[in-house]
């Protein structure tokens, strides 16, 4: 494309709020090409919102998001859809189409966007399913799958069009340790084998540390810290330490903001 810099995505001075609640207040992030980049942060910091902004499911109130040098705010509907074919996205719960079998779910983008003969589609789908270890589940329906399997099928579907950027939204949530290990391995394998850029949104510090090349920690609408997993865990910042080591109290307070405790208990409300 026009700009083959080291960064596949560049976010500059991004502002977004949901109702009166500000989510991002001047966010700047560079996502490097060909690496696994993790976006971490406590619940409610807008990690998923950021993914929706990057894929333009929603629009920022201010600021620019450039992908390969292209400002995505300027794309019209048709260009946007063409642009989205360069993305693969793994949703939190897999988001498989419940009416279709595993095979048809993976084949869906091919049937929608190509005129490939059935034989070739079968070949591609089985290859992708094999890559996630579920070739044997091709004829099953999504409701018959466990959470981990559904996510692996969704991953096969996300890579079936050979995307340049693969986005994972909370891929580790609610998985047993074995499924978790499988997904961690797949994230790394997909990134290295396919030469794509991966963006990983998660708050599972342990898993992210094993798989990511670089992490951004979001807090209060900005990047609170960034760096490799080692750099983050050895930081002096109170907030980063609280998050990385899972401490209950710290800069992110245990108590949600509330009126004075004694006054509320002894005050007029109590009478």
């Amino acid at each position, binding site marked *: 494309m026009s700009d083959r810099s080291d960064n596949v995505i560049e976010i500059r001075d991004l502002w977004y709020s949901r109702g009166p609640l500000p989510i991002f207040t001047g966010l700047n992030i560079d996502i490097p090409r060909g690496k696994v980049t993790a976006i971490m942060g406590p619940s409610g910091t807008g990690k998923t919102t950021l993914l929706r902004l990057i894929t333009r499911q929603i629009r920022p109130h201010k600021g620019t998001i450039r992908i390969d040098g292209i400002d995505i705010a300027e794309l019209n509907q048709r260009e946007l859809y063409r642009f989205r074919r360069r993305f693969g996205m793994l949703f939190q719960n897999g*988001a*498989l*189409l419940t009416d279709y079998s595993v095979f048809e779910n993976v084949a869906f*983008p091919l049937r929608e966007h190509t005129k490939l003969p059935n034989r070739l589609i079968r070949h591609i789908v089985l290859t992708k399913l094999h890559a996630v270890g579920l070739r044997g589940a091709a004829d099953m329906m999504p409701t018959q799958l466990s959470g981990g399997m559904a996510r692996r099928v969704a991953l096969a579907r996300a890579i079936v069009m050979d995307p340049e950027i693969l986005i994972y939204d909370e891929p580790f949530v609610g998985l047993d340790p074995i499924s978790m290990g499988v997904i961690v391995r797949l994230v790394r394998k997909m990134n290295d084998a396919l030469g794509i850029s991966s963006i990983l949104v998660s708050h599972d510090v342990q898993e992210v540390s094993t798989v990511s090349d670089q992490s951004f920690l979001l807090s209060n609408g900005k990047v609170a810290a960034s760096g490799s997993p080692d750099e983050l865990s050895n930081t002096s910042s109170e907030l980063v330490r609280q998050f990385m080591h899972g401490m209950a109290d710290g800069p992110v307070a245990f108590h949600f903001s509330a009126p004075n405790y004694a006054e509320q208990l002894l005050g007029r409300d109590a009478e």
Partner: protein
Amino acid sequence: MIRDIYQTVMEFVRTFGAFQLFFLRLVINSPYVLTRRFPLVVQQIFNAGALSLVIIMVCGLFVGGVLGLQGYNNLAKFNAEDSVGTFAAFSLIKELGPVITALLFAGRAGTALASEIGLMKATDQLAAMEMMATDPLRRVIVPRFLGGSISMPFLVAIFSVVGMFGAHVIGVSLLGVDSGAFWQQLRTALEIGDIYEGIIKSVVFGLVASVIAVWEGYNAIPTAEGVGRATTRTVVITAMAVLILDFIITALAM
């Protein structure tokens, strides 16, 4: 108080405007779906139409039977029991056929559409389609809207025919009205305009019931509670819209 009323009215106007725009988008996208994605529409005609057949036919039979009984008993007071066929036909073709079919359609197919689309939204299936560069409006919403709209007039026709059969069974076979009189009076009294009125109603109700169902599903709050509420609203709003429109069309046709 006045501010509350103002806000409610504004909210209604805003929603109604958005609803009209949504309907316009469905109509604009319909030719594309009809020509390029017709198999999707056929599947939805099966879901909305064929799967509603049984309840439509059973209800039609009993409604026709009731018309036969009521018509016979009341017309007999004026020695006009031979007109029971005409009575049933006018009721079915002009009013009960379109209205009751639309209400049953809302209960059977409308709720299914709204909850299906709402669940697809709640489980990110629609967002996933968008991320796969497929417009969910064209892939999911428009085929369902068309499937429902196309099915309704046929369901109304079937309802009316089965209803006439029910009235015939009660009036002629059970109560002894002369079969020749049953049909002959009908042929003289019924005009083509009456049938047009029924057809217009069935088409309008089909469009209305389908667009309300897909609108409610598409705009459902993506939670279990939100989908449940969308399903309920589909039935309530469709019933109200159908009965109000029925009055308007009837008044205009006079």
